[in-house]
């Protein structure tokens, strides 16, 4: 059985790995906003030792004033070196981490309640829609949630083996998870407290100290950086994400007609509603993924719909199967949405750690159903596979077709089109606006830099605040003001075609279309 356990776990991990790693350059359809920031900073640090804002080995990447947690960009450096500046060069780390999580959850399941639970947990995670989704894009939160999982696994190991080594390693990984994403800054301390509280009869308070100290020491630079950033840049994007600082809440507080006590109560109720949303059946099983717009027939929750009975039976039998560790798993599950609930948009990637305890609880339910009714169990497995096939069709076939704008589609394609022409011209002007009505603002500087329009040193050495880098110039185009000459190529938003004189002077050379067939960018070259 022991060998078979490992064999099964390896097979499941490999299958899960295929869903996570194959075709990373095609789906998601284009590197997204956050992905390109991480990709560029990782590449820039590899080449110059500095991020795009010329900060040497920063503890948080300024990015677009959201001060990204640094670990992903640093851990990505070897992958960027191996794969180069392409989608694999930034997404592979997330994909490999998501795949390793399958192996890790199997170990935790085994540690908690034996090999069966381990294998069931691995199957559930391998086929989990949200896990597949986040593993295929460069999400720091995915890396963080897996590192956190490793920390928790080591905590469980310590409980059984009582060796300080496991404790120190757990502390190290808890600390590293704080380096990897903001949610963990709040979640890790809560988990440490819950760990102590759940096992206070078996493990003395002082025994935990090596883990706490290691976590504290490892995460100290990040907390220090966090405080200095708040002092240096109090209006940074990260701090504006907290719910009471969001525009809607601020506006209600300042201009709402309600009495102030009512306003206060309503504002305080907001994170409670946010918290509750994470446990909504719709969020969990039918449309929490937000893959498609509202009212579309293909939508999925964070977990396959068929796994709903597993969660139900799992919760009912948690203590029976996990024994004294059941309390810890339950509290872990309940705590995960706390920090994301304090932000304005809770149901996003901020709550990825939530996936792991949910999967473990579902594995309990799966085991119970197998014990009670084999027929029902196999029926659910069969339906689960059908459910996953539908997710596969939705995600791998249809999702890339409609998400052009979400992933700033077109910059890579535009760069590839103009690349052969650049030598003959002095300037390539790129408009940051995109979308049907030019309603979005993108980051062409990073996209063009990453794909090789100019090297990292040119970006570093650009004149302060200027968006002129090498031959590339990022700016909004006003055709009536533009001094059109024979030395400039234009990449304009589809919402901004040439007008008046510019029509006479420029030829529409190419149109970049999104996968849904709608235009995204217009490439103009001077007329002969």
């Amino acid at each position: 059985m022991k060998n078979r356990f490992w064999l099964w776990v390896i097979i499941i991990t490999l299958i899960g790995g295929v869903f996570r790693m194959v075709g990373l350059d095609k789906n998601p359809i284009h590197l997204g906003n956050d992905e390109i920031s991480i990709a560029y900073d990782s590449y820039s640090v590899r080449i110059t030792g500095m991020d795009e804002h010329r900060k040497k080995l920063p503890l948080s990447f300024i990015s677009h004033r959201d001060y990204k947690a640094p670990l992903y960009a640093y851990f990505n450096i070897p992958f960027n070196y191996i794969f180069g500046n392409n989608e694999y060069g930034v997404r592979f780390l997330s994909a490999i981490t998501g795949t390793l999580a399958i192996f890790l959850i199997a170990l935790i399941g085994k540690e908690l309640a034996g090999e069966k639970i381990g294998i069931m947990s691995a199957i559930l995670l391998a086929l989990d829609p949200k896990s597949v989704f986040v593993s295929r894009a460069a999400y720091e939160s995915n890396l963080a949630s897996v590192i956190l999982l490793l920390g928790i696994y080591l905590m469980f190991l310590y409980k059984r083996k009582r060796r300080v080594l496991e404790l120190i390693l757990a502390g190290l990984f808890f600390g590293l998870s704080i380096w990897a994403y903001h949610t963990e800054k709040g979640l890790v301390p809560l988990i440490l407290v819950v760990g102590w509280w759940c096992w206070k009869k078996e493990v003395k308070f002082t025994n935990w100290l090596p883990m706490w100290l290691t976590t504290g020491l490892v995460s100290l630079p990040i907390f220090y950086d966090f405080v200095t950033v708040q002092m240096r840049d109090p209006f940074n994007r990260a701090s504006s994400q907290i719910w009471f600082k969001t525009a809607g809440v601020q506006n209600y507080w300042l201009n709402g007609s309600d009495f102030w006590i009512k306003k206060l109560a309503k504002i305080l109720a907001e994170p409670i509603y946010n918290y509750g949303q994470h446990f909504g059946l719709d969020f969990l099983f039918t449309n929490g993924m937000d893959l498609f717009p509202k009212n579309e027939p293909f939508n999925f929750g964070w977990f396959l719909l068929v796994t709903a009975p597993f969660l139900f039976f799992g919760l009912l039998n948690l203590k029976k199967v996990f024994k004294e560790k059941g309390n810890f798993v339950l509290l872990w599950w309940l705590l995960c949405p706390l920090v994301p609930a304090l932000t304005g948009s809770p149901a996003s990637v901020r709550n990825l750690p939530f996936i792991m305890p949910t999967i473990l609880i579902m594995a309990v339910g799966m085991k119970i159903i197998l014990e009670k009714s084999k027929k029902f169990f196999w029926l659910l497995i069969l339906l689960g596979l059908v459910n996953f096939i539908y997710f596969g069709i939705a995600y791998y076939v249809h999702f890339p077709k409609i998400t052009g704008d979400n992933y700033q589609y077109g910059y890579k394609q535009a760069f590839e089109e103009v690349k052969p022409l650049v030598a003959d011209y002095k300037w390539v002007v790129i408009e940051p606006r995109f979308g049907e009505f030019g309603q979005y603002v993108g980051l062409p500087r990073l996209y063009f830099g990453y794909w090789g329009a100019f090297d990292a040193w040119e970006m570093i050495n650009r004149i302060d605040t200027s968006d002129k880098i090498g031959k590339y110039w990022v700016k909004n185009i006003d055709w009536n003001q533009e001094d059109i000459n024979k030395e400039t190529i234009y990449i304009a938003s589809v919402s901004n075609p040439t007008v008046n004189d510019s029509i006479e002077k420029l030829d529409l050379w190419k149109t970049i279309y999104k996968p849904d067939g709608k235009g995204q960018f217009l490439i103009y070259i001077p007329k002969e």
Partner: protein
Amino acid sequence: MGNLEKILGLLIIWLVLSFDSLMLINSFSWWISLLMFWSFWFIFKQKKKYFWIFLLGLVILNLIINDLLFLRLDKPFILFDWEQSIWNYPGVTKSIERYRYEGLFLPFHLRNLFYSAYLKFSLWLINFSKLLSPYFWIKAIGFSGGWLMFLGLADFFKDKNRDLGILVWFLLILATSSWRMIGSSEKFIFLTLPVVFYWIYRGFKVNKYKLLLAGLLIFDLLL
């Protein structure tokens, strides 16, 4: 539990429900409200034999409340608003057609299998799961109402003599309300109020955390 406490409990429940749901009674026709209160009595006095007729009546009434079904008895007239229902909502059929087109690489029979009208069922599932979610109910009946309903439900499931007809009633109303694509939450749940009221009352009887309940109630009143 003494009489005074029971009366107090009922008062609290009334208050809790009045935030949103009972206010609604004013906005419905008098005969619908009357029927709803009569149905509350029915929980206790129902005859199993005729329960299915009662449920059928509830479903029809629920469809009328949600503006999906239009009935006129004076000049016989029945109309179902398919366009507002998940079964024929404009855009949904188009979406399925678009998927079918995007899936051209699949053989014809597989496309028929994957992209057919039954996909509309997933929209019903989305609506239904939303109506079954705890946060939906907390928004509808407040934190104190939600807390009592949770306790009442737990007590209901523990009770070996529980009447599953009540649960069927609750689920049936939510299931038929979920047929409507877009509508008001209050109308969706209006006909479940007797059942919710019943669970809240049960919850009140078993609630041991009176201070917590008082706190939640004050919080709800502030909201």
